[in-house]
């Protein structure tokens, strides 16, 4: 390892999405020297794809009148099915309004309240008064008591990521893009940074720092069909898990979004239903009110997704040229051409581009699709990772545990910046009090190990298994066995298949030379970690014999607060082919477990 490839800073930030950049700003503003690494330039991070908006109880729009952090808190806890950390949720709900306003100060063009009487397509009539005019407005979203989802048309993630990145540019924080972290450097107690592979030329680099932040986003691509970007392979969690001392929390808690659009499963934002869109079946019947008379299409995502699959299973699914599997329809025609092409322009464009559908006059095919990883690298409320000092995690990659077993729409973007702010401050505080001596022999050991892996992949020393075949088989196993409806038997089969794939993933060999920034090598390096992550999801789901939020066991359909008011902690011991699961209690100090007000527990009449 030549010196030119070693970079030393106070803080190393792995990832350049919203959570990562927001925390980097906090550290740089405290006078610390920060380096950001990322697979892609910051403005291409997956955060830019978020369309719908960010939850914050500003209470400006008429339908948000009387909103408060307390009501936001209650919605979040119910949404999580009492699986979240209530202290974190409280802190989050109290802080997020000022985060929205700070983003405004930095330049996000939030849509604003306009005064006057309004009639929404959903039939709701309201009047926004003059005293609120010009303040930040909000739209409706699933699972909420008040309208509090702040937005910029339907490009919220884009505008927020771009604006946060302007601050990173302004502060002059260096970003090393096309640089992939492939292993953490640690001694079992403290994290010292990471080994990274340069995706421009294939060279290995070493990053050493007093504090390391992981903000690498979700792991959606362990499923064959996901709304996530193709780079969301969960590598940040995988390298933390590989240390053997850091646990992933609640990996079985995977969110399926009701409206992914086949055949490529691009997301149709929840804003479409928030703005008054319906779901229709093959008979053009609007079926959600049959199952959920109160919240209809706007029950929480886990509930709507299950109701949709239930309805398809009951024989009401649509067969069409758009998909090899049966689907349902999203209908936003009644919102009118002007509304659709202005407020829902992004999805209107996507439907046109990818299916030739104009949603102002045609129906859009939709199907519940993997969307969000509630679980992640387990941290305390300061963002400090369990098991290793000097390591922090934020955003979708982390299990700070704002979301428990189901995340509310609009709470994730809000989490990224809020966690980046709150935990970023804690990282700064921690880092300012630290000195580090780096043991270069140990560092070299980590580099050698990665060099060895690469050499073996190229030479085929361990075998010639194909990285892409293993990825596809893993994705299919997750679709077949670890999806919306889960049963013990099917999960067992899924776990067995994944264990087999894990063994094969250790025998991958390249089918190309592996020279330079070879993309096959990148995939091959990720595969064992991805299968381990998938096993944490599948095995966690198998062992959790209850239903909570998005984790639904047909053989254990009830929530079980007596035995399962717990958080799963999955560890990976060296040489194992299954994670070791521990559990920690989930406290409910503010809102004791109760009825969510929607979903199977408080079901209305069954569908026809």
């Amino acid at each position: 390892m030549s010196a030119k490839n070693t970079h030393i800073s106070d803080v190393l930030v792995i990832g350049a999405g919203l959570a990562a950049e927001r925390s980097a700003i906090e550290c740089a503003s405290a006078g610390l020297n920060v380096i950001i690494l990322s697979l892609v330039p910051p403005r291409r991070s997956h955060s830019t794809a978020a369309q719908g908006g960010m939850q914050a109880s500003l209470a400006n729009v008429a339908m948000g009148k009387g909103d408060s952090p307390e009501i936001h808190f209650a919605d979040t806890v119910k949404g999580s099915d009492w699986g979240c950390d209530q202290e974190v949720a409280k802190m989050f709900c109290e802080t997020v309004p000022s985060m929205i306003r700070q983003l405004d100060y930095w330049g996000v063009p939030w849509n604003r309240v306009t005064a006057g009487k309004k009639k929404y397509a959903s039939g709701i009539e309201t009047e926004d008064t003059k005293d609120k005019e010009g303040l930040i407005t909000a739209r409706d979203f699933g699972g909420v008591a008040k309208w509090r989802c702040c937005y910029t048309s339907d490009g919220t993630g884009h505008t927020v990521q771009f604006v946060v990145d302007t601050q990173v540019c302004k502060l002059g924080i260096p970003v090393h893009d096309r640089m992939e972290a492939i292993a953490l450097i640690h001694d079992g107690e403290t994290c010292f940074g990471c080994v990274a592979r340069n995706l421009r030329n294939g060279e290995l680099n070493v990053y050493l720092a007093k504090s390391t932040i992981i903000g690498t986003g979700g792991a959606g691509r362990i499923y064959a069909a996901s709304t996530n970007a193709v780079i969301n392979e969960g590598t940040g969690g995988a390298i933390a898990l590989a240390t053997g001392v850091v646990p992933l929390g609640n990996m079985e808690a995977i969110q399926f979004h009701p409206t992914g659009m086949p055949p490529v499963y691009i997301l149709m934002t929840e804003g479409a239903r928030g703005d008054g869109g319906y779901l229709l079946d093959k008979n053009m019947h609007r079926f959600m009110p049959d199952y959920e008379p109160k919240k209809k299409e706007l029950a929480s995502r886990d509930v709507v997704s299950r109701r949709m699959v239930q309805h398809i299973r009951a024989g009401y699914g649509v067969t069409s040229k758009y998909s090899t599997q049966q689907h349902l329809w999203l209908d936003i025609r009644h919102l009118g051409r002007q509304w659709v092409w202005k407020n829902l322009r992004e999805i209107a464009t996507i439907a046109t581009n990818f299916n030739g559908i104009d949603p102002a006059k045609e129906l859009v095919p939709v199907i519940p699709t993997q969307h969000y990883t509630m679980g992640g690298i387990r941290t305390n409320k300061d963002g400090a990772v369990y098991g290793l000092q000097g390591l922090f995690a934020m955003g979708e990659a982390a299990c700070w545990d704002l979301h428990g077993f189901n995340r509310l729409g609009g709470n994730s973007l809000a989490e990224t910046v809020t966690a980046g702010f709150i935990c970023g401050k804690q990282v700064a505080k921690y880092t300012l009090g630290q000195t580090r001596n780096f043991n270069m022999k140990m560092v070299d050991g980590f580099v050698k190990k990665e060099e060895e892996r690469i050499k073996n992949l190229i030479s085929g020393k361990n075998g010639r298994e194909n990285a892409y075949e293993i990825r596809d088989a893993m994705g299919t196993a997750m679709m077949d066995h670890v999806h919306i409806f889960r049963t013990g038997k099917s999960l067992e089969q899924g776990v067995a298949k994944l264990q087999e794939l894990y063994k094969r993933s250790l025998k991958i060999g390249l089918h190309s030379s592996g020279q330079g920034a070879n993309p096959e090598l990148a995939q091959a390096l990720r595969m064992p970690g991805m299968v381990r992550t998938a096993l944490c999801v599948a095995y966690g789901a198998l062992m959790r014999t209850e239903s909570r939020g998005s984790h639904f066991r047909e053989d254990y359909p009830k929530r079980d607060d007596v035995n399962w008011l717990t958080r799963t902690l999955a560890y990976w011991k060296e040489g194992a082919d299954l994670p070791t699961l521990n559990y920690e209690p989930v406290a409910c100090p503010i809102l004791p477990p109760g009825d969510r007000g929607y979903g199977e527990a408080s079901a209305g009449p069954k569908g026809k």
Partner: protein
Amino acid sequence: MGRKLTISCFRFNPNIPGDKPRMQDYELEEYEGMTLFVALNDIREKLDPTLMFDFVCRAAICGSCAMLIHGRPRLACKTMTRTLPSKFTVMPLPVFKLIGDLSVDTGTWFRDLQVRAEAWIHTNKKFDFNALEVRMENETAEKIYDPEQCIECGCCVANCITANIRPDFIGSTGINRVYRFLIDPRDERSDADYYDVIGNEDGTFGCVGLMACDDMCPKEIPLQENLAYVRRKMAAAGLKLKFQGVKIS
């Protein structure tokens, strides 16, 4: 049965000693709804694992995948193969530094642009955690959102005559970025401040106005209008500075 497609790809990996630029043909069968995202991944996963290209969102949102498709800069992820002849070429975008095959370094180019154009809100106000947001007309917010939608794909830059010969020219995307801040009431810069940054040949006056960029934009940003606005403003600012006796370059 779908058509048989022949995709002729530019190949060159500068990191492999002795590698030479060339075109390589790949044949594959087309199917319903096939995009170039699907086609190129099929090639990489089934035919040639060395092929380099970039996709992130595969939904025309992130700007990663622009390339010259059948001679025109486009986003590969939203290009349906059925809109192309059965034999076509794919080449990396010009102007940007080549990383390998179809992959180019737009990231560094755009970062440099943001820093040179100081593309962030300049204000002397301090943020107050306890204060309400400053009010703004919804119309103004929507007006800012329009140019803000640029995804930094580089299609407009690739097609621009000036950008192809002048390495420091900020391109229509850069001028559009400045426009976004010019119309934002939160940015306190004066026209003269902007003039300092882009009132030169690498900025707005480098543009020759032939509008080769205009209908390249996948986000349909009205580049022509926005460029004209900035040029008018900067020309006026330049005149004013001249009258004030400020020496301008």
